[in-house]
Structures are given as C-alpha cells and as structure tokens.
C-alpha cells in the first residue's frame, strides 16, 4: 500500500481530463486533420495514442490512424546492457511520407527513447513533421529534445522513478513517483523503470 516512498500524482480522473486537454491542444495546433497520424511508442505509449485518437474522434468525428513503434532495435544500448526487453513488432501500416506525426509516449525523461523513436520513424519514410506528446515530463534530459504536448510537468529527483499504470496494460490508471530502491506495490517494475526514458 502507498507509503512515504510512493506518492500518487495522477489518478484516473486526472489522467482522463489531461488526455482530453491534450487532444484539444493537438487539434488546435494541427488544422489539417487529413495528414495527421498518431504513433505510440511501446509499451504504454500505445494505449495513450489510442485514447488520444478516440478523443479526437469524439470531438471532430475524424478517424486518425494509429501506428505502433517498438524502439528496442534502435536503442543506443541495444547490445551493451543486460537482458533484452522482449522484442515486439512495429506496426505502421500506412504511408508516412508527407504526414504530420504525433509521437506518443508515457514519460519523457532522458530523451533517449525519443531519439531512438525518431530514427525508427525515419526508416518508414519522410514525414512533413514530427511532434511529441507525453503524459508526464519528469525532466533530466540528456539530449536536446522537448515535447510539444505535455500532460503534466513533474519535477523529480534523478534517483526517483515515475511509474505510469494504464488500464490496458496494468488494470488501473495511475501515475506514481517512487523513491529509489522501492519497487511498486505489486513488485513489478513498470513503465520507465528499466527503460531509457
């Protein structure tokens, strides 16, 4: 159960309202919905991209294609660190040449995941632009990368970790900050703990 080492920073209602606001911001900034596509970064960027697409569908009655990107093969430490994440397939079944791509991830941290994702996207074609939407920006960038749409700016210490739980993956919608050395309540490392952020 939540202890002093584990702070709940977003609950289900907050995540829901945040995504609705982000969908509005995306629509405000991109008037031409014809060329808009969403690409979720595995794992938790994918349900977030799908939720943003369904918000946009509710607001504008337009179907935005959603792609899935696995960045494992593009990581800068792909062959130097310990156990591999299980590689899952990338599904981008639409042409991306000339499209406006909104890349979606749960937590923006060092920026290395996004760097890898940009390389991955470029292998599928030449989009007219790529924008970045993240649920949480926790700072500590190691590369010159910033998000265009941020659900919540969350100042953190480097040794803390941010855990995003989503219903599609984890059965509940919650964002926690967890102090170093303490794993999440069920003991399963989630989201950004082991990845590059």
């Amino acid at each position, binding site marked *: 159960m939540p202890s002093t080492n584990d702070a709940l920073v977003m609950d289900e209602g907050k995540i829901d309202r945040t995504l609705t606001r982000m969908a509005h911001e995306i629509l405000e900034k991109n008037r031409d919905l014809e060329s808009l596509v969403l690409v979720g970064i595995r794992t938790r960027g994918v349900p977030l991209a799908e939720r943003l697409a369904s918000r946009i569908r509710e607001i504008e009655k337009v179907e935005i294609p959603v792609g899935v990107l696995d960045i494992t093969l593009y990581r800068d430490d*792909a*062959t130097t660190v310990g*156990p*591999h994440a*299980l*590689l899952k*397939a990338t599904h981008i079944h639409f042409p991306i040449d000339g499209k406006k791509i909104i890349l979606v991830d749960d937590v923006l941290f060092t920026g290395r995941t996004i760097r890898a994702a940009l390389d991955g996207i470029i292998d*599928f074609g030449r989009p007219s632009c790529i924008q970045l939407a993240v649920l949480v920006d926790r700072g500590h960038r190691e590369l010159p990368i910033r998000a265009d749409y941020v659900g919540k700016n969350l100042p953190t210490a480097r040794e803390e970790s941010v855990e995003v739980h989503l219903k599609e993956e984890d059965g509940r919608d919650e964002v926690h900050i967890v102090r170093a050395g303490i794993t999440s309540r069920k003991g399963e490392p989630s989201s950004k703990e082991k990845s590059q952020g």
Partner: protein
Amino acid sequence: MTPETGFRLRHKHLLGIEPLESEEIRLILDTAESFLEISTRPIKKVPTLRGRTIVNLFMEPSTRTRSSFEIAQKRLSADSLNLSSSSSSATKGESLIDTAKNLEAMAPDMIVLRHPAAGAAHLLARVCRSSIINAGDGAHEHPTQALLDAFTMRQKKGRIQGLEVAIVGDLLHSRVLRSNVFLLRKLGAKVRASGPPTLVPPGLDRLGVDVKTRIEEALEGADVVMMLRVQKERMVHGAFPSLREYFNLYGLTKARMKQAKHDAIVMHPGPMNRGVEIAAEVADGSTSVILDQVTNGVAVRMAVLYLLSGGAVGELAA
C-alpha cells in the same frame, strides 16, 4: 522485466538445438516474429548491430544459408566478411583452428561456421573468444534450419505441440533431420521418419523418432511433410540402385500426399532435386511452403544474431 526474468539466451554460442531449453527455442521464435516485419519495410535495415563484425566462414558449398545469414546481418547493420573454402588458406593446408585464430586476431564479434566435419563449431567455441553460430557441421546439426522450419510450422499451423511431422529422405547424412528431431521433440511434436534402409542411421528411434520403412506409412495422417535432399555428393557408395528407383519408392508425389491430412504442408530445406525426392507438381503446389521457409529464414537468423549479441555474460554452451 527484472534481471532475473529478463529475456535472453543462456548461451554465448548457438552450436546446436540439443543444448537449448524449450523456453529458449520459444524466445528465438517469438523474437523472429518481430523481425519478420523489418523485411517488409521500404528501408529494410535497423541499426541494432552497428559496429559489430561477423565472419561467415563457409568451408562447404552453400547458397541459401550463406545468403540468408548475410542478408540478416546487413538488415541489422552488422559488418560482415565472407570467407569460403575455395578463397581461404584452408586450400593451402591451414587448419581450422589456425584459420579461426587468425581471424580472431582481427577481433570479430561472431563467427558463423559451415564445415563438413561434425563438431567443428564446438571445436571453435572452445578456442575462440567470439560467439560461434553453427551453420551446419557435417551430419551433426544445422540449428538455424530447424528453427526456421519450426517457425514456418508455427506460422502455418498455429502450434508445434501435438503436430504429426513426417520427415522423408536421406536420414543418414542429414543434419537438418537431427536438429529438427531435437527441436520438435522438445516442443512436443511427434516425428516419424522414412527412407531407404541403407540411409537410416542406427539408433534413430532412441531420439524419439518413429522409423517407418515405407513412405506411405510415414505420411499417413501427417500435418507436416518434410522432404530431405538426396545428398549425392555425400554418397560414396551406392546406397540405392538409381535416382529413378529412389523417386519411385520414396519420391513425394501428388498421389502419395493423399496419405497425409488434407491440409498438410510440404517443406524442403533446399536445394531440391526435382524428380528425385520431390515431384515438381508438389514442390510448386499450393501446399508447398518451401519459399516461405526461405523468407522466414532471414527473420530467424536476425533473431539469433540479435539474441546472441546482447549482454554477453551467458555461460558457454555445450
């Protein structure tokens, strides 16, 4: 994932299927599933093995396996070097160990070895620092072939467990047979094999294979029919009177395929001898998945290269 439960092979080398656990086989097949997609992209390349050097040392003729490994390496951005028996110093009398040690002095990360002698890959694994991938050693094993065969069966049949697999042909000289038997038994398929009695190795039944003398018995109710090549180059003595007689007794024809299940698939590791072990109409027929095997071979080899390259702290295989 935690370090304890991380997805990795527990081996530094891929020397055969025999030393692998069934979970490791499933990991390779699952990983290959994701690599299949890369070959359908406009830019068929990912940067994963950038800066890695891989030597393909082929001391025996091979088109399919070598080009498949080469394409897999290119699609992972590895640098590769191809050496074949005709272009290597082996023709000048250099031993395999000396060749390998000299190559190692140039610091490759992996060596893919095809060699006519069984155990050649194991020998290199003992003396080399690089990861060794066995691409066929004599009549012993050909692990990536068995993995791509299993991948193709799973793709077409949705499972391996409980499949009835008939393997027909030159069982004596076949490393493909041995690797397939190890793999299929570990994953719970049933294997029957058939071939001329002069080409059946003694003790095959001890590996869990149901050996049948007549091809019709082996095909009866099979889900998968795997034909093996008649290895004419290995046939030092007359194991059968003529190729024609071989075809009459053991060739896979449309009529014989009726013994198998109606949705059975036909596989062949290649290269095929049309009119010897398989009739052209079967090889080119709708039940044939022979070219799918080739396509899948690239994805499976990418998976093996990727998994062997990661966090190389695994213990030595054997």
